[in-house]
């Protein structure tokens, strides 16, 4: 056997083993965390499952691939929405869906406009545009009552049994969620019942988590 054929066999072996390792990696999940491949929650009796996009070549395109929206109005938001309101990330949102939302004690609110919501949103989110929570909406009280506030005998609202709310909007460049948080606090909603998912739909999509859109197409 000459040197050239030895080299050839070695090259074949190397490329074969690379193929084996490669397919082994290919078979691995794109998991949420090491010990969690997906997250299941129920919303009014319907079961939803959030996982990550398994196509490792997938990249964002379209609206949520954009880097440069005009500021104002789309300016970068601070880490905290308001005093007493915790800022959360994707894992906390999933935890919130699995526990509070599944138990009927919480809701995930998409605070963007109805048009944006109808094109896509986080799986399990409910659309409550920030503007409808402003004091100039004369039907705001009806929304607060639907979120679990109770009208007391003197006409004021009691939020003791109101739902926990996790609020988000398009991304870190959108003030919608923060405005919704301040509108809610101004209406009397307790800050400790509010959570701010600052990353919003863009951060959610950027790690391939299931959206209403992708859930429907599957």
């Amino acid at each position, binding site marked *: 056997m000459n040197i050239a054929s030895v080299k050839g066999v070695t090259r074949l072996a190397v490329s074969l083993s690379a193929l084996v390792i490669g397919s082994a990696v290919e078979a691995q999940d794109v998991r949420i965390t090491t010990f969690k491949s997906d997250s299941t929650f129920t*919303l*009014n*009796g319907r079961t939803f499952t959030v996982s990550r996009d398994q196509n490792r070549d997938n990249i964002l395109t379209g609206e949520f691939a954009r880097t440069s929206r005009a500021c104002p109005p789309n300016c970068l938001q601070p880490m905290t929405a308001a005093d007493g309101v915790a800022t959360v990330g994707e894992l906390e949102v999933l935890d919130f869906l699995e526990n509070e*939302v599944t138990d*009927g004690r919480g*809701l995930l609110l998409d605070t963007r406009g*109805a048009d944006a919501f109808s094109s896509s949103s986080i799986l*399990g989110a*409910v*659309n*409550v*545009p920030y503007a*409808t929570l402003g004091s*100039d*909406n*004369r*039907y*705001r*009280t*009806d*929304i607060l*009552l*639907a*979120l679990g506030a109770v009208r007391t005998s003197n006409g004021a609202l009691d939020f003791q049994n109101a*739902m926990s709310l996790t609020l988000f909007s398009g991304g870190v460049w959108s003030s919608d969620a923060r405005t919704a948080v301040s509108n809610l606090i101004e209406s009397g909603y307790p800050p400790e019942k509010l959570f701010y998912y600052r990353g919003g739909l863009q951060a959610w999509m950027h790690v391939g988590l299931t959206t209403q859109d992708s859930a429907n197409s599957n």
Partner: protein
Amino acid sequence: MIRTTIALFAFALVLCGLIIFRPFADGEVNTADRLGAPVDIEVTRAVTTDIEALVRATETATTPTAVVEAPRRVDVARPDTDDTRLSDMTNNVLAELGFAGVEPVTTNSQLQRQSTSDILAGIEAATGQHSVLDEHDSFEAIVIAALRAGETDESIDRIVNDAAANGVAVPEILVTSDGRVDTSVMLANIVTQAQMAAGAAAPAIPEVSPDDVQGMEVRVVQRANDDVEARFYTVQTGDSLGAISIKFFGVITHYEEIFEANKGLLSSPDRIRVGQRLVIPQI
């Protein structure tokens, strides 16, 4: 040697005294900062006072002979208002009453109602809890019901004012200087818009003179080229901005020009007070 020591000691004492007591220092009077700008905020406040005084002086200067009654600062309780335009509301009242050729328009109130009911449907889908939109009567619905029932003007006045007292929002320009709802303007405008819908011409601009309009003044303001007649009107008890617009222009729609011309005085069209002296613009 001792003398020198005592002299030096005395000099040191005097020097210490000078340092401690600083008899020639200016004291804390000068608070200017290093850039030379005065840092005392009292200065800015003094300027503001001057501007206010100047504005008052100018106001007095334009009316040298008139005794200006200071607008009452004690504010009356006012009905809630919303951004529904009286002309839109009237239009919908006429459409509801079946006037030919009047198509209903969508008011902000209806838009908000629609979007809120969409949201409630979304929440209901997620929680399974049925929620209903509070069916509080709109001002429009109350007026329609009263007109359908053939109520007299007096009882319509009582009905709409009771409704306003119970928190029903009314159009801004119907709020009077004493915090009531101007039913006569509302009814007059319904008649006017009904006539116009039936093809009648818009009411003519009435001839008004200070002789027959209480609170009206006409002043001749000299300009470089010509003299301009400026009209002023002092708000009387029971006036609404809609009433003033009808008084001078025959229709409610010119309230906007009156409001624009008096923006310094009126924070919003429903905040008119007895004794306020309004400029009546030329249309």
